[in-house]
């Protein structure tokens, strides 16, 4: 199956005009001898939220980490298939592709908040400093903008130089979102960003993501069906490393075609 042949999920006119940000085609992945992903093909539309759902251990996070080649940090991994990052069709998995260049275009937020052990300001500025931005005014401006977008500005604007560890868990995760947003990534990978947070902080982050979806392309791994239903446009269901079902959230979550999806959703509704 090629990406071109893949059915674009929604047949509404609105969906047709969205170009693709990411084309994942026939992706398989191995950890040592164990195959974790099997022939996954998945389009990700620009400035939409695509949610990856599925039981734990189904390979959601593994898939996410293929996209910015974070698996490269550990030895013993192997990719097969293609991931193309648009525009330009950067062949993410090709051996001659520098993973650093891929990561410069993609931002990521992890399961547990993982701020750097430094000030709030330096956390947000980190991505820009890595890219060689030195001008104080530009840094100041972008830090403020990113913190505003992450909905954290009002809470921290008077203590930007406080240590990031002094923030609450929910605040730390929003700080991590601001950190990922600051270099203006083309694609944002979110790996269960609310799984370590309490319901109030979760609600806050969901609201934030809903706001961000008009400006950013977001790929969200979540185990919360309600979360996918609330904020995602497209939903992909993974089961034992295979993509079982993919389509608009309304279709996959309400009228799933595959029995495995149905069973999973039923289990969650119960």
């Amino acid at each position, binding site marked *: 199956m090629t990406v071109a042949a893949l059915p674009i999920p929604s047949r509404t006119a609105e969906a047709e005009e969205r170009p693709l940000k990411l084309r994942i085609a026939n992706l398989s992945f191995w950890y040592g001898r164990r195959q974790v992903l099997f022939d996954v093909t998945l389009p990700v539309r620009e400035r939409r939220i695509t949610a990856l759902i599925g039981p734990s251990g189904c390979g959601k996070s593994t898939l996410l980490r293929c996209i910015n080649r974070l698996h490269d940090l550990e030895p013993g991994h192997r990719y097969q298939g293609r991931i193309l990052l648009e525009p330009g069709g950067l062949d993410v998995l090709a051996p001659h592709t520098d993973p650093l260049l891929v990561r410069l275009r993609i931002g990521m937020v992890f399961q547990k908040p993982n701020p750097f052990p430094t000030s709030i300001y330096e956390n947000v500025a980190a991505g820009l400093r890595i890219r060689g931005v030195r001008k104080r005014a530009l840094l100041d401006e972008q830090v403020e903008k990113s913190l505003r977008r992450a909905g954290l500005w009002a809470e921290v604007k008077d203590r930007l130089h406080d240590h990031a560890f002094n923030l609450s868990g929910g605040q730390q995760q929003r700080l991590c979102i601001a950190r*990922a947003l600051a270099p203006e990534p083309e694609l944002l990978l979110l790996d269960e960003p609310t799984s370590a947070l309490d319901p109030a902080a979760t609600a806050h982050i969901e609201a934030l993501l809903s706001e961000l979806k008009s400006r950013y392309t977001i790929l969200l791994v979540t185990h919360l069906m309600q979360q996918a239903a609330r904020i995602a446009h497209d939903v992909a269901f993974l089961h034992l490393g295979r993509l079982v079902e993919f389509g608009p959230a309304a279709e996959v979550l309400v009228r799933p075609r595959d029995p495995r999806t149905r069973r999973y959703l039923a289990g969650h509704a119960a």
Partner: protein
Amino acid sequence: MSSTLPPRIRRARLLELAFGLFGLLLPGAAAFTLLVLMFDLVRSGLPHLDWDFLSAFPSRRPERAGILPAWVGSLAILSVTAALAVPLGVAAGLYLEAYAPRGAFTRLVEVNIANLAGVPSILYGLLGLALFVDGLGLGASILSAAMVLALLILPVVIVATREALRAVPRTLWEAAYALGADRRQTLLRFVLPAAAPGILTGVIVALSRAVGETAPLVAVGALSFIAFLPPSPLRPEPPYVDAEWLFSPFTALSIQMFGWLSRPQPAFHELAAAAGVVLLALALLINALAIVLRLRARRLAP
């Protein structure tokens, strides 16, 4: 009640109790012995410890002798040692923890570092004698001494660096890489600052060992009788700094103490005790600093 128990079990219980008592006594005995020894050192040394002793040069006459060149030398050597060993050791630790591919070379380096830690310190001294003092022509100087001590503590600094790096959470490395940082940026900007307290603790422990080292300094030609100080590192006219002190002949607290101990007269033994009190205080103080740092770092950890 216990009289109804079979004798074998009763005996086992008795032995158990005895060992428990013995175990309590043993650390107590060790501590007691040490306190007696310390007490003796302090009792002999304290009467001599005054400002005159700290600010006078050594002398043939015990009542006028002091340790000024000794402690100045110790501090000078220690600072150069740190300046040499810390960058080298941290760099090697970074390489092994973050760069080294799994292979023969890495394995060789690792085995080698473990072995270096077991080489007697006096052999480092002889290496310095042949290589730095005579080979490079640096002479019996502060620089030669510091280079020897730097080689000596290098394995300790490397191991401490690796342990500190390993203690940095994996998620921090990932966050940096996901942001687009390359390995150098990840290490220098994020990982190294996070590991710094751990590395610092290891370095300080290593320095507390270095300050007490005697044998390697003897081998590179330390003098036990010096009546002058190394030239000042500062100059009134540009370029304001001067490296000449690095090439000055040297002594150190440990050497001074050893020199006095080697003399037969009891009066010099008392001076040795006084120098020993200063040396011991310095070594323990540096070590205690490391312990405090570690406890603080543990409390601050997220």
